[in-house]
């Protein structure tokens, strides 16, 4: 095992230790969008495990956070970075916390600052302007409620492969 792999393995062990302490399980999945026509000619949209992936395909990212411990989790914030190879699809951010207050904000500076979509500002050509989906680097959900023991929350967004 070379030194690089040793370092990575050590980092990964630390990840496992932290997860065990927090008793929170976090899982991210990604599926691709498939469109077809039903017998009545209506478009049917399904999200399936990715078999083939080409530029222009739509992806559905999901993050499930489950409190497997005995204490409620408070001030929960879920942050997901956008790969440079995808573009966030505006308006696609979702949260499973029906009826509860969840705030979605975006960053165009790799997570340093966040603001609602339409209020993120970037500087291009020396001029400030409202960021577009192509400028977004991160998305963050702020759960304005506790996540009780044994409960999960799911957030999701869609992105298109450049």
């Amino acid at each position, binding site marked *: 095992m070379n030194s*690089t*792999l040793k370092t*990575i*393995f050590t*980092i*990964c*062990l630390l*990840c*496992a230790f*932290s*997860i*065990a*302490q*927090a*008793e*929170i399980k*976090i*899982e*991210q*999945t*990604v599926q691709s969008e498939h469109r077809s026509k039903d017998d009545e000619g209506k478009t049917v949209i399904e999200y*399936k*495990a*990715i*078999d*083939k*992936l*080409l*530029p*222009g395909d739509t*992806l559905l*990212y999901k*993050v499930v*956070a489950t409190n497997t*411990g005995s*204490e*409620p*989790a*408070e*001030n*929960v*914030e*879920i*942050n*997901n*970075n*956008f*790969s*440079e*190879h*995808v573009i966030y699809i505006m308006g696609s951010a979702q949260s499973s916390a029906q009826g509860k207050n969840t705030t979605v904000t975006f960053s165009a500076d790799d997570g340093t600052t966040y603001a609602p979509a339409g209020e993120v500002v970037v500087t291009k050509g020396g001029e400030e302007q409202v960021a577009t989906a192509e400028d977004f680097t991160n998305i963050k959900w702020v759960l304005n409620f506790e*996540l009780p023991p044994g409960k999960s929350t799911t957030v999701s967004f869609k992105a298109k*492969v*450049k």
Partner: protein
Amino acid sequence: MPSDKYKTSSIPGLGINKLHCVVVLLLMLFATNSYAAGVPAATVISSQARVDMTISGSPISLFSNTASIIVDELLEHSLNWQDTSNVVVGAGQANAVLTYQLTNNGNGSEAYSLSVNNTAGGDIFDPAFTDIYIDNGDGVLNTASDTLLNPGINDPTLAADASQIIFVRNNIPAGLSQNDTGFSILNASPRTGTGPVATTYDCDGTLNNGIDGGDGCINPTFLVDAIIGNSTGTQSVTGIYVVNDVNISINKNFAIRSPSGGNEPVTGATITYTLTINISGSGSADNVIVTDSICSPGPYPTCGDTSYVPGSLRLDGVSLSDANDADAGNYNDPATTNLITVDLGSVTAATPTYVITFDAIIN
């Protein structure tokens, strides 16, 4: 069945597995280019979520597994005939050139098979295929510097978004008539394969002969498949020849008149040059311009040994001024060229012969 290209954590309890730690590091090391065809094939798209929270008053940050997916190769290309109009040829002409442009509109490097079909019909004659040359980048056929195609051996390989000029040469049969047309169809197919849209060539984990596009496997490590796009694998484009049945020949003679009245080439003798242009056939030729140099090789090749006699230029016996003006001829324009120039314009066999004369004196 989903392939292995969608990979998440494989070690229970660990947010990141070893492979993806390496992948993430690699992505940080290499900047990527932007392609019109989209993200390059074999690109790994990775994403990782972070959750921050407070439990029992203590802030905690955790990371999810890294979800990594790999982009497949889109097989998409286009082929266009580049000649701006039908290529004018003469009956019996050898190696008449047609020019095409092949473009890889896909997102991965691909080799292309090229072939020519001259017997598809719809035309008057079938050109006889000679060869195909791969341009060296200057857009002009040069058989010394361009690459002669050896099918299956040196098929052109194009990077994503790249274009390549292709030259096809055919021989034109003899015995054709004015405006006869001949079609020559160039076919270009990705080496990976052809088929209806979405046809998939699965990567078997090995490259075929080490050639990109040799099979459905642009990257055996990540099992990147190749998928047929809207071009359905094969592009066929017709280039057209049209016969212009016109033959032009030119013959040059001279006569010497010495000061003594003889025909000796002595100082002061006058040489009368006669250029005879003969037109035959049923076609026409445009912008026919005849030039001749006073210094041109001949009985007195050294420039300066003879001098043009001003005002001696004639076309079919009619005097032409030396200036570049309304009439068809001129001398020494631009200056220092020592050229006589006669613009015959469009010619047909209706006027089968033109005679140009001019004088030069031996210095």
